[in-house]
């Protein structure tokens, strides 16, 4: 394992901004929004101090942030932005255009509840609203992962077989503003890892003029969508390659799924983001009492790790899915996807859906225990959505 030279206590926002500093993108266009703001502030300071060569565009809205990075990435630049919540929602239209134009933009997202009423705290409704936009979605549990995944996102998105934009999700405030211990790579190691960009069809190659964004009618639009579907199919393989390379330089191992105590687990809980850590701790507590419990946290939510989950969940007693977002009039997004994946496993586990933490509501160990206890007593109903930490 490589020696840790640079261990710091920093906020998730600092960790992400530091990853951006090491990436040294050609262009960053960003607009501040709580709780992403410190990412932009730290990075703007790097620009002001000349420690990066990045040209920064202080745009007048998130819509323009995404529009400008689309322009910059199409031009041939390595381009990044960052956002949260309403900002991401404002970008929505162009989020799709970035993906369909196959521009490998990397965008850290400090996950926050979408209005209304307005709320600045963590939940996953912002990213979930973009889950079908054609972006790869990586999800970090803590500041360390937010840093690591931001670096890996560059290589993943820019890979020849992928060429898709990547959203790096980390929980607003909990991770973005919380101070944690992060081991940073040396600048040179990080820079070597992300490598030089290799743009495809750069607009500024004026000797070979290309046309971006034509009117694509029914005779070709479908074919272009099929290409996007295909690109997503390569993501898990490429992520594995990128993660293996990253492990060599960091000693930190990433896979499609983060698995904790699942080898003999009869009861498995699935969650995204920082809550997975609290679940791991709860698993330790319950294991001490003799319960065979474990937790799976998808590092990648889009593309959805269906096959991997099928293999791991087949034959377990129960699967409990925690969602930090609701899907009004339908099942919560992570639960829906997991449930659908379990349709054709040979031995279906019991399954239950728990929505928690909307608008930053704290998720406590007792809540997690309660959901596990429901599973222990066989009290799970696949068609019932339950709520943790809600006054009923």
């Amino acid at each position: 394992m490589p020696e840790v030279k640079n261990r710091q206590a920093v906020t998730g926002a600092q960790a992400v901004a530091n990853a951006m500093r090491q990436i040294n993108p050609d262009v960053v266009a960003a607009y501040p929004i709580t709780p992403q703001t410190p990412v932009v502030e730290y990075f703007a300071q790097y620009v002001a101090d000349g420690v990066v060569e990045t040209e920064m565009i202080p745009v007048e809205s998130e819509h323009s942030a995404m529009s400008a990075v689309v322009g910059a990435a199409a031009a041939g630049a390595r381009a990044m932005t960052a956002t949260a919540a309403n900002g991401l929602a404002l970008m929505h239209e162009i989020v799709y255009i970035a993906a369909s134009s196959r521009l490998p933009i990397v965008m850290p997202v400090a996950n926050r509840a979408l209005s209304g009423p307005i709320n600045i705290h963590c939940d996953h409704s912002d990213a979930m609203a973009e889950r079908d936009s054609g972006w790869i979605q990586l999800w970090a549990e803590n500041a360390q992962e937010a840093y690591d995944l931001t670096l890996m996102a560059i290589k993943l998105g820019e890979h020849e077989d992928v060429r898709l934009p990547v959203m790096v999700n980390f929980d607003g405030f909990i991770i973005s503003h919380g101070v944690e211990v992060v081991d940073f790579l040396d600048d040179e190691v990080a820079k070597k890892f992300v490598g030089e960009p290799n743009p495809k069809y750069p607009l500024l190659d004026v000797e070979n003029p290309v046309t971006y964004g034509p009117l694509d009618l029914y005779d070709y639009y479908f074919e272009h969508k099929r290409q996007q579907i295909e690109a997503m199919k390569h993501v898990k393989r490429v992520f594995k390659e990128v993660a293996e390379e990253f492990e060599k330089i960091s000693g930190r191992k990433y896979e499609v799924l983060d698995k904790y105590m699942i080898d003999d687990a009869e009861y498995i809980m699935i969650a995204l983001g920082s809550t997975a850590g609290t679940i791991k701790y709860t698993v330790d507590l319950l294991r001490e009492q003799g319960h065979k419990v474990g937790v799976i946290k998808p590092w990648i939510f889009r593309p959805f790790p269906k096959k991997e989950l099928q293999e791991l969940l087949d034959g377990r007693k129960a699967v409990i899915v925690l969602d930090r977002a609701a899907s009004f009039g339908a099942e919560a997004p992570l639960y829906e996807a997991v449930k659908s994946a379990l349709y054709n496993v040979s031995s279906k586990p019991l399954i239950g859906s728990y929505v928690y933490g909307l608008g930053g509501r704290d998720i406590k160990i007792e809540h997690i225990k309660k959901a596990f206890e429901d599973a222990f007593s066989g009290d799970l109903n696949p068609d019932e959505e339950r709520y943790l930490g809600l006054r009923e």
Partner: protein
Amino acid sequence: MALNIMQLATMFADKNPGITQGHRLCPGCAAPNVAKFALMTAQSLGYTPVVGLATGCLEVSTTIYPFTAWNVPYIHNAFENVGATISGVETAYRALAKKGRIVDPNKKYAFFAFAGDGGTYDIGLQSLSGAVERGHKFIYIVYDNEGYMNTGNQRSGSTPAGSQTTTQPVGKKLPGKVQLKKNIVEIMAGHENVYVATVSTSEPMDFFKKIEKALEFDGPAFIAAFSPCVRFWRVNDDKAVDISKLAIETGYWPLYEVERGVYRITKKVKELKPVIEFIKAQGRFRNLLKRSDADEIIGELQEYITRRWERLQILEEATKDKPIR
């Protein structure tokens, strides 16, 4: 250097000026000429154009996959964001030039953004304003056909009072659009360090000169190009230039420029023709003319045009040799 038509024809006799044949704009449309005039000027002065387009007629009709009627780098992103998109392209240019990647150091790049009035006066105004405020070096050209003509003549902030549109039609009860056209030139001139001008294809020399100024200006430029839509203005296919001339002669579309706050009228009209001549020449005002309150509405427009013309002359005199910065 003042460009002339013979020189340009010689230069572009056997090559396309950025935009090419095979586009699917309506016969007689003014928009391709707006693009052609601008891009010919840039190239004849040694610039390499890179163009961004907002969704609209010019965009839709020139790039129907797998066909593109452009032989220069072209990007369309969405309707409301060509200002931001070209900001990104222009910024990438600076970043890549600095790092010695992709950009050819021996070329002078010129960044153009084209948008209709919908993408400029209405939905794209924020993106345009932001890009100009940030001072990106680009030339934004609105081909102003006074409505959402791409989708069949819906009202925009540029549609004049009395013009028939499908979203603010003349009805039994309501008189159609009564609001005056938004004065986009003054809005854009309100930004600092910007070159702003109006142009018309019916005055090509003035058009070329202003593009040249815009190219050489140290900052963003905004050019409003009068761009008749022969189809929805309900005039014959061959009338785009005639209508443009009438617009200038009546003072409906004054040709002027504002450079760092200094106003200059570039086409002096000794005596303005009455605006009714401009109105009567177009079918889009037919319903207005049938109304009992037509004289009132046209009278208001005439009053506005007369005052604006006077005001421009006062501004020209008052700001002469007094740039704001």
